[in-house]
């Protein structure tokens, strides 16, 4: 069962005391975060975590991104930031493999590269380390448990995903399918996986299509914030919220009204600010050579406490949170 929130952004976990980074030759370390695209509220949350850490450390932090989440759109930003003198590049890749050669260039020039939020799957050798928001291997199972508990472990449900080629999504969906083999879920049937491309119109159309194709559908699981909002919208508009459960991954802001109106009973997400905050500490450690992204290496992530590099140099930021009607107002991202 997924945990109830264990940490509120910017507060609870006692920190082992952040020691301000002493800078070599009076120059602050320059950390740049390149998310998938600009104007995406999810990454605004991540950025706020980076900024919080940047104030504590202190480091020179900036963020930049292409206007659209294009697989190759990040390349020019990486090249430009190297030229502008970045020490660490934190990247949420739009594509796990289109950046290989430019990342190699960066590292050849001594720039550290950290994957944040999503890894360069199968191309891990082209980056130094990765900070993932939560344990991706268990997320799928968590999501199944969430929707299962909401639909009394019985009935048909479908998955509304983002694009067919989003590595995270596919990783989780594989986990979901694996989890469904548990006899506990024997009475639940997955009738299909559809893709809304993270676009409003397409997501809505796909959600509508699901309801048309399966009049007896009991649930829609959408592990993407655009998708889960679209599904909620459709269920509300068709007035079937009483028999179709919508859940998945979504930010409190986009889901707030649906949660409060009882259209959606619960959604899960981790804390994007925590992830940004931890990534910033890891970045500084790597840049100063104090840290090596190797399995078992531990480091102090400011107020969020200790984290460790796991297999493949991956750091897990924390467990997912579950937002419901009664706790959603505690979160602002």
């Amino acid at each position, binding site marked *: 069962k997924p945990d109830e929130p264990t940490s509120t952004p910017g507060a609870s976990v006692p920190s082992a005391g952040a020691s301000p980074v002493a800078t070599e030759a009076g120059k602050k370390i320059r950390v740049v975060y390149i998310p998938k*695209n*600009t*104007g995406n509220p999810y990454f605004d949350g991540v950025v706020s975590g980076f900024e919080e850490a940047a104030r504590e450390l202190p480091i020179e932090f*900036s963020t*930049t*991104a*292409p*206007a*659209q989440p*294009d*697989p*190759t759109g990040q*390349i*020019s*930003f990486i*090249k*430009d930031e190297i*030229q*502008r*003198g970045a020490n660490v590049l934190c990247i949420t890749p739009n*594509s*796990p*493999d*289109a950046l*290989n*050669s430019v990342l190699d*260039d960066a590292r050849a020039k001594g720039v550290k590269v950290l994957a944040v939020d999503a890894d360069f799957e199968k191309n891990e050798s082209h980056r130094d380390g990765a900070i993932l928001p939560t344990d991706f291997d268990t997320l799928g199972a968590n999501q199944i448990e969430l929707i299962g508990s909401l639909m009394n472990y019985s009935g048909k449900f479908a998955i509304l995903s983002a*694009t*067919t*080629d*989003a590595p995270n999504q*596919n990783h989780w969906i594989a986990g979901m399918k694996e989890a469904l083999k548990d006899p506990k879920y024997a009475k639940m049937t997955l009738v299909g996986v559809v893709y809304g491309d993270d676009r409003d119109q397409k997501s809505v159309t796909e959600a509508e299509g699901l309801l048309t194709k399966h009049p007896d559908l009991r649930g829609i699981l959408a592990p993407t914030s655009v998708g889960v909002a679209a599904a909620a919208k459709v269920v509300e508009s068709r007035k079937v919220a009483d028999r179709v459960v919508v859940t998945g991954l979504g930010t409190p802001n986009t889901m707030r009204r649906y949660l409060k109106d009882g259209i959606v009973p619960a959604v899960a997400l981790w804390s994007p600010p925590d992830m940004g905050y931890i990534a910033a500490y890891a970045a500084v450690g790597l840049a100063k050579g104090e840290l090596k992204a190797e399995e078992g290496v531990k480091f102090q992530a400011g107020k969020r406490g200790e984290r460790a590099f796991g297999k493949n140099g991956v750091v897990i930021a924390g467990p997912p949170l579950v937002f419901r009607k009664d706790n959603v107002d505690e979160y602002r991202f």
Partner: protein
Amino acid sequence: MGERWRRASARYLPELTVTGLLAVALLLSGWREPRFWDAAYLFDRSTLHMETGLLTLTMTLVILAGQIDLSVTSILALVGALLATLHVRFGVPMTVLLPFGPIFGGLLGSVNGYLVARRGLPSLVVTLATMALFRGIAQILLGDRSVMMPPEMVGIERVTLPKSYLHAPLLLLIVATVAAYLLLHRTVFGRYVTVIGVNPEAARYSGVPVARTMIRLFVLSGAMAGLCSLLLLSRLGVARYDHARGWELDVITAVVLGGTSIFGGRGTIYGSIAAFLLIAIVQTGMGVAGVKAEIQVTAIGFLLLLAIFLAKVTERGR
């Protein structure tokens, strides 16, 4: 100023304006941002623009003939998908497949050409449809997979002329520019393209092989996309179905900025390539100055307006 010069400059006003802006952009970038003038960086970053540059050349011809080809970027992706599939599933060595880049591209272009020239459908609609179709077939072939290219094929942008930064794709662009210039301004084919753009009906009445020229044009456009596909495969090292999505708008922007009339009949290779360089320089300048992406988009918009505005003002000043 002589009379001849005056007339020529009136005729080539858009080209002259873009050239002027190009000079300004270079000076301004260097002055505002010292990190701009770094040959290693400039040449390295220029590798990102080579496919757009090449496509700008053929798009100039297509638009000059009063047509448009929105499907080029989809052809690019589909050719990559085809080659990758042949390579991975059927084990055909990549070196053998190289010539098939332009060939497949040309074949796909001929579909557009047939529909436009022989069936008389408007190219805007045809290529809108094939844009979806070709990209869709690429998606069927590759799905969500990325197909890695063999190492010997990767990194053409790192091949340079000895003791210089002049990399192979740039060399290719230079050669292609000269070729496109000659094709448009020095050959019968180029003349046919122009007259079709000016007045297609009169072209038919004048015995110009309108349909044949148009088909060749779309084949050329597709073949160039196929060539660009090879470049991109080599540069990125992977084939994906969503390569180059949306680049067609950048290409069309460059062509239009370079003074080619969207209604056909007027335009030069020089104008297009100068406009392409202008956009690339401005983007590089803004990138190294850390300008936000959304501001960059806005800036290109203003650049377009500025170019045409200057041309207008100079025209009136005469």
